[in-house]
């Protein structure tokens, strides 16, 4: 498979998401940060968290600890409220109770497939298209049920050929 210009609507987002690893890695490079702890609660480091899902990970970065929890987005607000995580990154529509949104950015999701896939020629993918030409099935979060019930219905209806909790870009 290969990425072409037509994929710009969604794949760059996935690539951009992985850049969130960079701030953590660069943490040790900042003077004055060599002692201290930063606990972040995130779903967004797509590649790395694929292997970390559903378990806690504690990484030591040159004296600064980054505490990462599993990527179940619905838990983020509770972790932030309770002090279990200092920072949460998740899909947001409005600030969950007990939290405030520091920043947000448009981050739509899309369908990933081989360039030879029958749906690759479409500008947009409808759920009913997927019913007859099922793409790879990735992960989902409960928030989708509230945002787009049709997505939840579609999700429950498909029998995937591939099931994964990660998309490599």
């Amino acid at each position, binding site marked *: 498979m290969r990425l072409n210009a037509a994929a710009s609507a969604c794949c760059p987002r996935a690539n951009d998401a992985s850049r969130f690893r960079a701030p953590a890695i660069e943490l040790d490079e900042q003077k004055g940060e060599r002692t201290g702890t930063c606990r972040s609660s995130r779903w967004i480091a797509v590649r790395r968290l694929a292997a970390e899902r559903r378990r806690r990970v504690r990484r030591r970065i040159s004296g600064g600890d980054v505490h990462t929890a599993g990527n179940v987005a619905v838990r983020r607000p509770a972790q932030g409220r309770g002090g279990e995580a200092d920072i949460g990154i998740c899909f947001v529509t409005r600030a969950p109770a007990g939290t405030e949104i520091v920043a947000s950015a448009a981050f739509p999701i899309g369908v990933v*497939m081989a360039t030879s896939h029958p749906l690759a020629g479409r500008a947009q993918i409808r759920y009913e298209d997927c019913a007859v030409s099922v793409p790879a099935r990735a992960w989902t979060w409960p928030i989708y049920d509230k945002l787009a019930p049709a997505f939840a219905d579609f999700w429950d209806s498909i029998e995937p050929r591939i099931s994964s909790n990660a998309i490599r870009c």
Partner: protein
Amino acid sequence: MVRPFGRPLDDPAINKLRAGIVVGRGRALPFVVRTFLDRLVRKLKELETPG
């Protein structure tokens, strides 16, 4: 390198999704966390201004 080919969904609600950085309301964040948070915010903003 194997790379995926992507298309957006025909779903206005999904296409309006926003990723957000949230912190506990009223919590005093330590220096390390504030600095890390500043970097995260900059990176997130860069998503909307690529290049």
